[in-house]
């Protein structure tokens, strides 16, 4: 074993080991390099040994950083080929040909190329002292064919819309490779990409034929295709061919299906719009039938909750045409023939102040008119909130609130209750058109305004409570214990009327004496003194004629409706 170590520089060492054995002569080259300096010196080394056609091959090297060795004389290539039946097989020979036009290359012609033989290549210095690099290979392993030529494509078929198509790509094998004889068997790989893409798509399968079908090309898009080949059974591919541009313009002469669809849709929309516009009303009726408003079958619960008794009673005592509707569905309300219709319109229970205020009399019409129960559903338009003011609460019936607030015509004073003495009068009748006729003044009896007013307000408030009580506890809801009169109906009347609790019977002073006739023209009023603990009204005796004549008691058996009771107030 011979060892030779050649220090190249302070930090490099090239060591050579020659090992002799009966059968083998190995040359092991170990190259130690340590880059202590940043500038690393690269020594000449073999870059590649390539055969293009399996008939010849070449080896190239790089001189590295040693520029002084750039001329071919400085570096020499030696080879040894184990070729059978050649006596000089085991000897090193120098490169048969250094091509003059190329630098750092050694070319092996056909005579020096043996395919299934092992070659050893060495790169040595000029004086044969330094071995720079070495390589061993078989020629069939270093075959890299030339790229194919003459790529061209033909359209195979296109989609029905013309936006996609398939092409048949064909090419010629490289002329250097003798495929005719069968000396080289080539496999081809096709790649494609869109012109603006960086990435090439590779067809997975290699083809042995010189054509290939490519699918799914888009019209109006530029594509590039390229082909490369390798030896069948080999490992290395050759260079790629030149790229071929594939482009198919989108045919404009084809029937514009998309345009037709859009135009047809727009046309249909236009026709439909015309139809809708012309038949708008009919369509509206069909599509959106008018919603019937609610018919008031009973007491508006909102009014009850708010405790606006007067509005409520005004509703109840509303124009006579409504009354049948109010009463028909109540089981306990026997519809007794209303003398109201005979005797004219019932009076809407209004506040006395309102009643006595003649200037407001003209408003009554509005009030009653204002409350109309029609199908438009305006029944609840009369917002109880409008009468929140205690003073004004009595001024407007629920019915009249809507219209009353809007009434400022004729210079009428606003509907605040005029601060004035309480005056009582009796409403003799209410005309159908809403006019209220009052009894003549001399028949009226006056109270002190203040007391009356206070009491009235207290009464109203109490009335509210009572009324609320009545309504909430008693299903019938119409047995009003409000009772300003001293005349109480007989017990049997009361009992026949209702089965309400006992405590309600007390204040029931009304006497149902004259059910079928109107009250005598002489009004009897009394003033409520206070409300006892049983929520019954205590009337002042003798200040006013005690008798409280029922205004009108059309019902039999002492049956009283709230509106009747209200009329009995003094």
């Amino acid at each position: 074993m011979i060892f030779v170590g050649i220090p190249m520089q302070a930090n490099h060492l090239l060591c050579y080991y020659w090992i002799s054995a009966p059968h083998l002569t190995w040359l092991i080259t170990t190259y130690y390099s340590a880059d202590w300096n940043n500038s690393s010196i690269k020594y000449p080394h073999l870059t590649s040994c390539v055969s293009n056609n399996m008939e010849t091959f070449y080896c190239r090297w790089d001189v590295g950083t040693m520029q002084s060795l750039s001329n071919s004389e400085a570096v020499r290539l030696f080879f040894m080929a184990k070729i059978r039946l050649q006596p000089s097989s085991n000897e090193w020979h120098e490169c048969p040909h250094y091509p003059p036009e190329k630098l750092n290359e050694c070319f092996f012609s056909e005579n020096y190329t043996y395919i299934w033989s092992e070659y050893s290549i060495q790169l040595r210095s000029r004086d044969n002292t330094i071995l720079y690099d070495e390589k061993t290979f078989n020629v069939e392993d270093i075959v890299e064919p030339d790229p194919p030529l003459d790529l061209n494509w033909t359209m195979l078929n296109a989609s029905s819309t013309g936006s996609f198509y398939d092409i048949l790509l064909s090419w010629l094998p490289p002329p250097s490779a003798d495929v005719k004889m069968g000396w080289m068997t080539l496999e081809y790989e096709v790649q494609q990409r869109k012109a603006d893409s960086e990435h090439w798509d590779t067809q997975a399968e290699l083809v042995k034929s010189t054509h290939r079908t490519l699918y799914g090309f888009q019209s109006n898009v530029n594509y590039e295709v390229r082909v490369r080949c390798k030896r069948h059974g080999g490992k290395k591919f050759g260079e790629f061919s030149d790229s071929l541009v594939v482009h198919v313009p989108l045919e404009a002469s084809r029937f514009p299906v998309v345009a037709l669809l859009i135009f047809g849709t727009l046309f249909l929309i236009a026709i439909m719009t015309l139809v809708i516009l012309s038949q708008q009303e009919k369509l509206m009726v069909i599509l959106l039938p008018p919603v019937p408003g609610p018919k008031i079958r009973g007491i508006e619960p909102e009014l009850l909750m708010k405790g606006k008794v007067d509005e409520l009673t005004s509703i109840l005592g509303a124009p006579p045409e409504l009354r049948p509707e109010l009463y028909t569905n109540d089981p306990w309300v026997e519809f007794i023939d209303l003398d109201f219709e005979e005797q004219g319109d019932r009076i809407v229970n209004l506040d006395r102040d309102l009643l006595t205020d003649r200037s407001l009399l003209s408003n009554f019409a509005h009030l009653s008119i204002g409350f109309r129960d029609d199908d438009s559903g305006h029944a609840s338009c009369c917002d109880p909130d409008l009468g929140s003011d205690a003073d004004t609460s009595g001024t407007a019936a629920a019915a009249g609130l809507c219209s009353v607030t809007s009434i400022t015509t004729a210079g009428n004073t606003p509907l605040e209750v005029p601060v004035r003495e309480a005056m009582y009068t009796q409403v003799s009748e209410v005309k159908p058109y809403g006019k209220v006729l009052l009894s003549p003044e001399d028949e009226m009896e006056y109270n002190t305004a203040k007391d009356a007013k206070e009491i009235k307000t207290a009464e109203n408030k109490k009335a509210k409570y009572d009324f609320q009580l009545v309504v909430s506890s008693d299903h019938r809801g119409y047995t009003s214990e409000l009772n300003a009169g001293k005349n109480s109906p007989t017990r049997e009347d009361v009992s026949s009327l209702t089965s309400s609790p006992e405590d309600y019977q007390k204040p029931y002073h009304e006497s149902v004496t004259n059910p079928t006739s109107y009250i005598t023209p002489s009004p009897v009023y009394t003033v409520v003194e206070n409300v006892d603990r049983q929520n019954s009204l205590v009337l002042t005796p003798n200040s006013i004629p005690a008798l409280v004549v029922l205004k009108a008691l059309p019902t039999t058996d002492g049956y009283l409706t709230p509106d009747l009771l209200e009329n009995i107030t003094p």
Partner: protein
Amino acid sequence: MKRVSFLVVMLAQLLLSVASAPICAYGQTGCPLPTLADLFDRVMQQSSRMHGISSDLQSQFEHYLFPSKNMLGKWKCHTHDILTPGNKQNAQNIDREQLTEVILRLLGAWGDPLSQLHQSMRQDHNKNHGRDFSHSSSNKALEMSDVMQELRDGVLKMAEKMKLQGAFSNAVAVVQPEEARHSSAFAFYKRGTLSLLDHNDLLYCLRRDSDKVKNYLRILQCSTLPGLEC
């Protein structure tokens, strides 16, 4: 995993054996006689397969044995005394009969060593010499042995057909390779005790020879069949 791969290999082998069933050369009824083109195709497929398996095995061995890719001189092959055309010029000068003979000699020279290789690989596996790859490689060796045998039979039939069709200019009987050399063929690679190095050398030679066979068959095909896409 080993069992699965073994099963897969056996299954593949079964399929292949079915696929490459012996051609009915006796003209039995209901058995269509293959044409020369069919024979060539089949033979080409098998030689490609042969070359592929041997390349895989050899690269496996080389990677396992010499991972650092040292430069080592390769040993001579036991088929070195078979004169084979080494370049295109020589291949053009040789005629079809000689080429066919060369092919047959090469194939014949490898029949025995391959079966012995398989056996020795299986022994290695049993001795737990190697890792998982030795199991798969012994299967591959078995596969190669079978493929080699079938390839040789196919080429024989093909040669007979060519002779019948007058492809050979001189009606020379196809020389059967000598049988005597086979016994020492495997021993040619032994360096004493059996080792993986021996396997590697053998595989290297096998790969080279299978490449030769494939190429020669291609040349034969292109020269014999007219109008073929060569």
